């Protein structure tokens, strides 16, 4: 049997299944809309203000920087656990890694990314 037939079947089945589920819900489910139900979902809260509000770009910047440095620090823990096993090579590796991090840190500092205004 041509192996591509299996792939094709998989594609057909998965698409079909998804379609069926959506269609079944639409056809069988009761449909009683009211004002509350049609409101956008905001975790159960009553929506406040405009949806298309503009946020200061700095929030994104800070969030990104936080993720970058936070995640990268996580690498230090497993390294510390097997530090003896890795030996001097591991130390050098981690030093290189931190050096890169440091350069990045100096860079964003220098560029003023850490200042709020």
């Amino acid at each position, binding site marked *: 049997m041509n*192996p591509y037939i299996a*792939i094709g079947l998989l594609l057909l089945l998965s698409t079909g299944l998804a379609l069926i589920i959506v269609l079944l819900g639409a056809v069988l489910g009761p449909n009683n809309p009211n004002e509350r139900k049609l409101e956008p979902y905001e975790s159960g809260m009553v929506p406040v203000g405009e949806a298309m509000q503009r946020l200061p770009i700095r929030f994104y910047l800070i969030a990104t920087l936080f993720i970058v440095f936070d995640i990268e620090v996580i690498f230090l823990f497993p390294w510390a656990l097997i530090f003896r096993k890795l030996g001097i*090579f591991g130390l050098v590796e981690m030093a290189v890694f931190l050096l890169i991090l440091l*350069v990045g840190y*100096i*860079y964003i500092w220098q*560029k003023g990314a850490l200042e709020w205004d």
Partner: protein
Amino acid sequence: MNTNVDWLQRSLAIGPELLLMLGGLVVLLVDMWLADDDHPLLPGLTGLFMVGALIWSFVPFIPGMGITPGTIYGMFALDNLTIFFRVFVLTSSLLVLALTTVYIKGRTEQTGEFYSLLLFITLSVILASAANNLIMIYLAFEFLSLTSYIMVGWLRDDVRSNEAAMKYLLYGAISSAVMLYGMSLLYGATGSTNIAEIAAVFANPRTEIVGIFNLGITAAVLMMVGFGFKVALVPFHQWSPDAYEGAPTPVTTFLSVGPKAAGFAIMIRVLTGALGAQTESWQAMLSAVAILTMVVGNLTALAQTDMKRLLAYSSIAQAGYILMGLVANNPADNFGIRAVLVYLLAYLFTNIGLFVSVIGFEQATGSTTIDDYRGLIRRSPFHAMAMVIFFLSLLGIPPTAGFLGKFLVFGAVINAELYFLAVVGMLTSVISAYYYLNVVRVMFFQGDEEDRPLRFAFPLQAVLVITLVGTLLMNLYPTPFLNLIGEPTNLVTQLFGQLPF
């Protein structure tokens, strides 16, 4: 295969990569304390690190260095293929660097970051082409993609540049996700992410249970989405004309060469390495993709009026020709892969040469419209004649590098007795003659009322001469270039011998 070799020696073996990384950081730091954005120290340092890495690339050839072909922790393959791509991408980066120095003046303030990114993208291409493990492949692939997105969107005030970066990013994100899914299937099927180990599992007859074996094929299909995106194969090509058009032209130049090379290197390693047992299946799939790519790329190129878009579609079509070499590869002698490498090298000289001309013209006139090339032969004869030679090379007409590439690729195809593929390839290359010569027609047959001579900055002239010499020499005296390629997949075969089962 010396996996117990001293780590210092390993660092020596990946010296070019370390140097590039260091270079990227140093340039970044130096830039911070330079008041002048156009300070010559920046491109100077960048070039220095690249040249250093290029020289270091040849260190493994020195006997007595103790560097033997092998892998570093199974992650980074050190073999002829890696060395080839090191030299390949460093050469193209150096040429692109020369173009950048001319192009970047007055266009952006963030010059230091640009040079630093150029070093990093070079590093990422090398890492991608040397990656010997699915995880490493994915990391290098993403590293390459992220740096490319930033570089495409470099001209922050240019709407087209922004649009290009956004399109590139969206396409890239989706296709790499699909590719990752394929990789996860491979891992699930074989329990390993190492290319050689995956291959060993598939090659072992005991495990040739239909399901597992076919998972390899499914994985190949899914991963092709990612690879196809990187080298712009139809139907994953739609981003490339916009990205090519919107990106700063030196970036376009690099995009048309570097990521393509990386994509093909990964394809060579994954398809012929990990999925060697499924060769028949993926070759059938790739031959369909190759036909589609050549037909769509060439036919769409016919309608283009912008030089950069024309070159984008032309490079899509060229990827189709390169792919044919992989389709027709015979694992016994790897002739097809060698043809792919020769073609890539030919493409490097030819395409960078063409882009130099485009940049020079853009610098002088601010235009990339084909019609504006009217009467170029009178305004800058050398430049126009060089462009003709580059176009002939893309077309595969001797005595140019492109001819040698096409000759070998079609040689592989004929040897594999894929006559239909060969005829489609040949006929589409006749179609491509029409749009390549259309530019020649505009440059040579149509007069220019103004007749103002065009002047080219020195770095552009230099790159033009280098690429021109390369393009001609590769056909007239090809032996050194063919030697550079040597036995391309040494390592893949050697690894099979080294495995414990």
